[in-house]
């Protein structure tokens, strides 16, 4: 690595991911436009990780997004958290390959990126494909579900969460890591002053490049119905409540 470290974090603005199923509506196969726009949750974990690495290694930190200009005010939160630069490639494709090709263009333009962080999966597409696709397009190593990163002898020491525990990995070179959530990367809440300062930072806007979409046709998007009817148990006498519950569970052969 050269004199300094340059980290890029990929972030995506999505419709409010906390809207409960009962209030969720589609229009044209996408979330209705009335929901608040916000940064994806894992993307915030990735930004937090990026900011921590910046602080530890005096790195520079650039946020890269592919999406709509209207979402710039939301993306500024990343600046308020501690990034110094924001690049937005304007486009509206949901195709993983198209998104990755455009993010690649933005990264190529920056020229000197050492490490690329992304959220484990976006909070709208539930997919976890873009970052791995991008890594291969860039010819870089991709490691998913990364929880901790340390720079070590010009390479990286990484912890990865797996189904059964965790792994410590090591490699030399540049990489793309998808970031999972751990207590240590719960996103910080930016100070009011930082939020105001972030509003004045310039945003670099780049037009999207043409690229091939994957051979996938979206046939339909539907909202599945949840038709569980909850039987509420009276709670005046807790001893009775729990006995009733256990009896019912056994009668219906769940226990």
């Amino acid at each position: 690595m050269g004199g300094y470290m340059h980290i890029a974090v990929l972030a995506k603005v999505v419709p409010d991911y906390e809207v409960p199923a009962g209030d969720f509506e589609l229009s044209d196969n996408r979330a209705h436009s009335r929901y608040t726009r916000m940064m994806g949750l894992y993307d915030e974990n990735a930004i937090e990780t990026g900011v921590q690495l910046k602080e530890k290694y005096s790195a520079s930190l650039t946020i890269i997004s592919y999406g709509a200009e209207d979402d710039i005010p939301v993306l500024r939160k990343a600046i308020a958290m501690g990034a110094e630069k924001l690049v937005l490639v304007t486009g509206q494709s949901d195709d993983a390959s198209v998104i990755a090709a455009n993010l690649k263009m933005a990264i190529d333009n920056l020229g000197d990126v050492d490490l690329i962080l992304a959220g484990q999966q976006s909070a709208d597409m539930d997919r976890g494909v873009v970052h791995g696709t991008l890594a291969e397009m860039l010819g870089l190593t991709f490691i998913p579900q990364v929880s901790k990163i340390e720079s070590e002898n010009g390479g990286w020491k990484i912890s990865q969460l797996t189904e059964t525990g965790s792994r410590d990995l090591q490699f030399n070179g540049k990489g793309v890591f998808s970031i999972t959530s751990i207590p240590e990367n719960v996103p910080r809440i930016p100070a009011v002053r930082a939020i105001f300062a972030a509003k004045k930072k310039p945003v670099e806007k780049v037009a999207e490049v043409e690229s091939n979409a994957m051979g996938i046709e979206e046939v339909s998007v539907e909202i599945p119905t949840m038709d569980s009817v909850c039987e509420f148990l009276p709670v005046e006498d807790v001893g009775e409540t729990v006995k009733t519950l256990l009896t019912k569970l056994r009668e219906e052969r769940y226990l």
Partner: protein
Amino acid sequence: MKTLIVEIIEPKRLGELVTVSKEFCDTPDIVALGAGDVPGVYNKAWQTEETISANLVPAIAELIQKEEYQVVLFSASTVGAGLAGPVAAKLSASVVSEVIGIEPDLVVRRPMYGGKAVATYKITATPAILTIRRKYFEPAELEGTTAAETLTIAEPLVSLIAEKQEKSEGVPLEDAEVVVSGGRGMGGPDNFSMLQEMAEILKGAVGASRGAVDEGWAAPTLQIGQTGKIVAPGVYFAVGISGASQHLAGIANAKCVVAINKDEEANIFKRARFGIIADYKKIMPALNNVLREE
């Protein structure tokens, strides 16, 4: 269609992929990851002890190209997540992740918006790479074993320094018939012992929401949901869990959900079969008392 399975040697995970492969072919081929016999019957089998996805990408992409596979199946797991994007990009293949339903002619379904919607796709170009969400397909019984050829891996880029298994006593979470899960409403790590006690008596396992994992009260391996474990127990106890769609995504196939939450408006009650609107600190000790006495 010529189909390849790539998965760690673990009978349930392999079995689910074998079940899915029947939609596309009679007998699939396999790349089995890890040591030991390859359970089940395949046309052709390859094996490698390498399980770090980054090190596997070149060899697997090459194999798909050479053998002209039309469908490639991974589990939606750490390994599958590490392989799907890079392998697809290498081959200009189509990739659909987290698949929960399959229809003829490469029509597949997957969740969107934290599981609040389900999208249906028709894949129009092969090879098609699918990662299959756990617990949505009944695992096939794998009989016998298949002799495997070694899959040659190039000089590894990423090296494994240490592997840590999260300690788990009793029944594995994904196999448990009873799961007792705690959320942010637990208020701290100590009270998880109440859940542990109940799980022990009922020979079940303890789970957690992302809320509880983010707080550091439960290990990440206990997280249930879209990005945690997918479980399908007989009974699922959700204690102090609001029931966000991303959490519900992990319990879609649970037969009976019991919700204990002090907020009657909590979304979990829309999924629950039985609901108790109360402070869990009153309910859980009473439940454990009755269970202990029995």
